[in-house]
């Protein structure tokens, strides 16, 4: 019998470990971005990689996001597997054209001849007191773009597993890292074999019977907290962590909502035109006759991300989620 050293690790460390293992196992993997080399990234996710693999495998690039992603496209054309870091969500916008016009379409443009196995790591979301342009939740842009996968972890273990799977994917993945979970900790054994699951599977984080909270990334812990608090009100909430926004796991989501008959979608991104609309519409299309109430949404307000001192009023919190659950027309049905 062997004992495995299970130590608490942060999400940031798990991500770093995923990059390390990918670099070690596959010589075509290259990490690149602003400050990812010597400094180890502003969130220290790439700490130690340049020292271990050299700065040709983990490269400090010039400060130009379109250039970073654009050169990554060329590297992928030559058979490499670039993992690009965008320093913050809003600083991925200069790379928008490369992402939309090339990365997402290159496989399709060339009838499969030029796949784009590029992972674009984007720290996203708020709650860390960041000044403007440092807290955007821009997943709606990526979701609306065919050809991209959009993936986001909510746990330490998923941070590792999903990033490995993203790097292994032969398609481009926008890998959204919830900034405020970088320092979240969990017991996690980096040396135990880590199963790399295929992308596109949601997971039920908490089983429940009264209603389903559908969420992802930074809002998963908030929803779990809300589910605990809801017990006092007599609600037994199920929490689904989507993990992958594209491809979308209709099966897991619809199965849960059919079971519970009620659903609330929760995310930080602004509500109007945000991911919640798509998710609510899909659920309604699939579960209409199982629904006791319309699928509701708890999201960021339809405003530019607020300054640090006001962000708590913007972010979906436990109370706002419970308010929505209360509006699920309990009088009406089962």
């Amino acid at each position: 019998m062997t004992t495995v050293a299970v130590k608490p690790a942060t999400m940031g460390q798990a991500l770093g470990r995923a990059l390390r293992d990918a670099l070690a196992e596959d010589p075509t993997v290259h990490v690149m971005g602003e400050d990812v080399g010597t400094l180890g990234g502003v969130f220290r996710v790439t700490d130690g990689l340049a020292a271990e693999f050299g700065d040709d495998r983990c490269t400090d690039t010039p400060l130009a996001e379109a250039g970073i992603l654009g050169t990554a496209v060329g590297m992928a054309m030559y058979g490499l597997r670039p993992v690009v870091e965008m320093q913050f969500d809003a600083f991925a916008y200069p790379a928008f054209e490369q992402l939309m016009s090339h990365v997402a379409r290159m496989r399709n443009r060339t009838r499969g001849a030029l796949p784009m196995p590029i992972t674009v790591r984007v720290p996203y979301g708020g709650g860390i007191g960041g000044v403007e342009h440092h807290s955007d939740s821009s997943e709606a842009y990526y979701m609306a773009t065919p050809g991209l996968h959009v993936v986001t972890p909510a746990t330490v273990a998923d941070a590792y597993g999903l990033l490995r799977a993203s790097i292994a994917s032969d398609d481009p993945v926008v890998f959204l890292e919830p900034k405020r979970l970088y320092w979240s900790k969990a017991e996690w054994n980096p040396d135990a074999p880590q199963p790399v699951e295929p992308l596109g599977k949601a997971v039920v984080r908490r089983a429940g019977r009264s209603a389903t909270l559908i969420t992802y990334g930074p809002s998963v812990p908030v929803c779990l907290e809300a589910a605990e608090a809801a017990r006092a009100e007599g609600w037994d909430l199920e929490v689904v962590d989507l993990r992958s926004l594209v491809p979308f796991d209709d099966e897991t989501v619809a199965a849960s909502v059919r079971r519970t008959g009620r659903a609330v979608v929760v995310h930080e991104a602004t509500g109007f035109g945000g991911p919640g609309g798509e998710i609510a519409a899909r659920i309604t299309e699939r579960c209409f006759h199982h629904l006791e109430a319309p699928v509701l949404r708890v999201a960021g307000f339809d405003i530019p991300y607020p300054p640090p001192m006001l962000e708590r009023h913007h972010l979906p919190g436990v109370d706002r989620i419970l308010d929505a659950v209360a509006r699920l027309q309990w009088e009406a049905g089962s």
Partner: protein
Amino acid sequence: MTVMEQRGAYRPAPPPAWQARTDPAPLLPDAAPYRVLGTDAASEVAPELLLRLHAELVRGRRYNTQATALTKQGRLAVYPSSTGQEACEIAAALALQERDWLFPSYRDTLAAVARGLDPVRALTLLRGDWHTGYDPREYRMAPLCTPLATQLPHAVGLAHAARLKGDDVVALAMIGDGGTSEGDFHEALNFAAVWQAPAVFLVQNNGFAISVPLAKQTAAPSLAHKAVGYGMPGRLVDGNDAVAVLEVLGEAVRRAREGGGPTLVEAVTYRMDAHTNADDATRYRPDEEVEAWRDHDPVLLVERELTARGLLDEEHSRAVREDAEAMAADLRERMNQDPVLDPMDLFTHVYAEQTTQLREQAAQLRAELEAEAETDGADR
């Protein structure tokens, strides 16, 4: 030693100890475009080369006129002609080895053909049966690129990747004068210089970006002067002089191959046709301006030299003409056949594996097509 280490670490020193990191002088272009044809140096050019270029130019011109004719017959949605710019198109293809990569812009179908691509497949994008008509890895040639300047960073990344792998591969990217205004041009050249990537950038300055003349595009002494700002050599060449363009590109390719880093080449030329068949150039430029360039036509320049040296005999002329006509006839004929398309292809290459959602949508379209076929059958 890694690529980065080779560059030597920059250490900022206080200005008293400051010095320019590279000598700018050798990076600056000459005051006038480099020319060979029509100068004394022309007599040194090997007859074989002149004859080869002549054949390619005539064939290239014919390709342009034939493709333009196909638009009139509705066989091609649109054609951005490179008439007048054939010297650049041909030289770009000839400057490279088979193992090198070419990154053409949307106007450069001719360069693709000169590189060996089937003239019909080069037109797939413009005919509208798919976005790209060839496997880029087979021809080591990126898809013809519509969003201007965006393929330049790709060229840099590919060249860098090849160098990291130790492969002897140079990437040559083509762009227009207008495209140099885009941010991607700037970022690509900067990355190339910092990484010392084996890349060559060929700007065809044909005087216009659709209707916008160069004076509204830049105030620079020349586009080649941009090179010094990236720390790479800038070269200015007469873009209608096929010998000169080939020589300048050849030198740049050689330098890149030998680890000397990237070069920016500005070829001064002129777009003789409208922007595309859909454009009306008389709205923004006088005919006299176009006429002034006729005497400096790239085919003419080579023919003059061949004639002067008595090399333009009837046999060569006929062979060249026949070759061009045969290509045009074949192109015409094959372009007159409707391509057979499978609508289900819409779903095949979005991802490596079809998502559940795409499978559902494919099933929907298949059902629709079957219903359509039934109705059609019933109608008959």
